[in-house]
């Protein structure tokens, strides 16, 4: 679809690649990702920052992209679910967390960001960080999934210490498997 040349272009650092997106400056990042770039893993739930379905990571921090203008994301490292490669995804499968799955992209983006800055979160840390809504009520498994990912990350860190660095089949590699 041809775009109006008067519409500005924004440079994003999306999932490790430089990507240009042409959109009105007030377009929320959510819609720039979904409609303009075709990355539909980030979901629309409320549009007012209340549900968290649209969460992405900007500079490693979880951000609700429905209330963040695309212009505010320019030039900063931005990760969406399509670019997430994290132990928490494998843990989500092992705990069979998702039900309908619609909220889970957002849940995973928050959980991964939490684990990256706090590798062994307590239940209280989890409750404080995980404010995204899930109508299917998967909360208990989300909590377990985060603890499981934390344990897997600790094991992986221990087994990738220099003397054991070549061990095969580390669990943390599993998440990168196709």
């Amino acid at each position, binding site marked *: 679809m041809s775009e109006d040349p008067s519409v500005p272009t924004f440079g994003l650092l999306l999932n490790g690649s430089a990507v240009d997106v042409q959109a009105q400056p007030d377009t929320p990042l959510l*819609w720039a990702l979904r409609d303009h770039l*075709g990355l539909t893993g980030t*979901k629309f739930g409320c549009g007012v920052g209340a549900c968290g379905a649209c969460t992405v990571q900007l500079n490693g921090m979880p951000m609700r992209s429905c209330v963040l203008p695309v212009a505010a994301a320019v030039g900063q490292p931005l990760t969406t679910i399509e670019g997430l490669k994290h132990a928490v995804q494998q843990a989500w499968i092992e705990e069979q967390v998702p039900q309908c799955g619609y909220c889970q992209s957002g849940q995973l983006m928050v959980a991964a960001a939490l684990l990256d800055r706090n590798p062994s979160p307590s239940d209280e840390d989890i409750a404080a960080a995980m404010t995204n809504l899930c109508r299917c009520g998967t909360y208990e498994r989300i909590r377990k999934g985060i603890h499981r990912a934390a344990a897997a990350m600790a094991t992986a860190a221990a087994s990738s210490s220099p003397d054991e660095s070549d061990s095969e089949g580390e669990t943390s590699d599993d998440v990168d498997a196709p």
Partner: protein
Amino acid sequence: MTALHNVSRRDVLRGGGALVLGLVLPGFSRVQPFDETLSLGSAGGAEGVSLNAWIRIGSDGVATLRMAAAEMGQGVFTALPMLLAEELDLDWEQVRVEGAPARSVYARWLLHIPIKLQITGGSESVRGYWTQLRLAGASARAMLVQAAARAWDVPRESCRTEQGRVLCGDLSASYGELVAAASELPVPRNVALKDPTTFRLLGTSPPRIDLPSKVDGSGLFGIDVQVDGMVHATVRACPHFGGRLVSFDDTAARAQAGVLDVFEVGEAVAVVARHFWQAKKAADALEIRWAPGRGEGLNQETIGAALSSALEKGGRPVFRHGAEPHDLSLEATYSVPYAEHAPIEPMTATVHVQRDRVDVWAPTQVPHMVRDRAALLAHMPLSQVFVHTTLLGGGFGRKSFTDFTDQAVLIAKRVDKPVKLIWTREETFTHGKYRPRVICSHKAALGEDGLLTDWHVSVASQNICDGIVPPGFPDPEFAPYTVVEGLAEAPYSIERQRVDYAKVRLPIPVGWWRAVHGSHNGFFRECFVDECAHEAGQDPVNYRRALLRSSPRHAACFELAVAEAGSIAEGQHRGVALFESFGSIVAEVLDLSIEQGEIQLHRVTAAVDCGLVVHPDTVRSQIMSGVVMGLSNALYGEVTFQAGAAQQSNFHQYKLMPLREAPVVDVHIVPSLEQPGGIGEVGLPPASAALCNALFAATGVRIRSLPVGNQLSL
């Protein structure tokens, strides 16, 4: 990478892959004579050879199974393949799943209504497809065995099957090697089904098939559909139920960037733009005049008065047990408010109307209804309407209505491109198909032993079945009965009981909300039974034990929950409740405490008897899901009306329980070989009652009207 991703998505939509299927769809008739004949049709698709409409096997042994039910979180994309795989002795690792098109062969008989539909609802998927799919699997297996027996020149009876292979002595062949020859054989008329005690796969919990696509963003929900050349639409519909669109000024809206068109569609204004955000902003700029019409005088007070006066006037007796209840001295009136389904995926559908065909991509629980309606609205023969069911980002009953898909068809008729319609959350909240507001009065008498002996229950509400039940369907018998589900035919031994129902007509749209009538009747009945126990000075657990004396299956389930819950922890308070719905019995024991003026939910111990279990882990997760939704709604869920307009427009006004408040849900399954029961909704009905019974134990305050909100001053 992003580009690649897009291209492959679009290819899928163009017809390469899993979504665009079965492009020749014979006409669908609603009512068909019952037969168990397996389809001779083919499960279309790119790879593999079909053995019937459900099963296609590739030369590599990969089995692609067609799913006629929609996956909305309840796990059918795993449970239904298991039915086929069990009878067919497939290697589970080689099972793939794809959605079926809207087509008569994929319909099933509804459990309580004599019609055959392709519908996902009523917690009926496993029950409704139980025989159909097992027969399809068994018949395909027989064909593969026959093909092997012929090739090896051995009697069929000497062959067995295991993990996707036919075996006979030292001989062995994979299904992939046999499928071509098998597909040439006639479909066997009679096939034996396995004895449930010999099941190998059913009763185990293989990882859910749909989950990998739900942790990497690749799962395709309705809102994610992308079709080449697609534009976007959103609507502003009349906020007043019973009202209408008077006029609108679209000057400012049309001046917005990207706007392609603005027009009236029913009692709504649609904006079509290149991108959703442009459509949304333009819709915000519309100046619209609405007339509240019949909604004018519709507010909390008038609705309440309508229900109360219907109750006072008295309804129609719809259930009786024993003689007329008498000497009724114990009275209590309960109520629940309108509730919104609030799936996190808002209403959305993508439609392309072309000269000779209509395509609808939608997160729908009712693909064939979507098809029938689209054909009608677009004046297209049924055979030229193609419905592509996506994953549902939550359904809970809301997506069993076609209002949003109908509207998308009407909009797409005016646009020469594919159009994706997305309702904002505000539109979704204010144009729901709400769980009705219901009031229920109890009048009762207790016997000398304190047990409930005489019970007169009266219920007043709008009836969900009004206007939905197809013509010719026996509404009068059916509809009121379901309204009083669980109030009538309770498992308790009560000497004299009568249940009345008073139907109220109001212009507020009501619909099936998860657990439907169980969502309120569980609260009404199980809290009132606690009141009776309290009146009799008895412990609620022992009181129920006595009342359950003639219902051993319910009693066993209840005892399991009580035993697993153990003793109450110091400082905590307990509520119990029991409810049967959709063919399954669930007992819940809820422990809470009050901490610094806040309700702290600790644990819900649930026991479930859902007959033979297909996938135990799904049973556990669905009970957990029902409990959380039930508690969330009991604590916070309420839609109120002013001038016929819903007053809650987004999650800040309709709170959902967050992780912080969610209790641990500990689920125990009663072992059983009985017919399978439903599981998607059954965890919900006892939850609100267990909560309010525990709150009574903690505070002495009896909550008779939901939501709990701030009725307690803690």
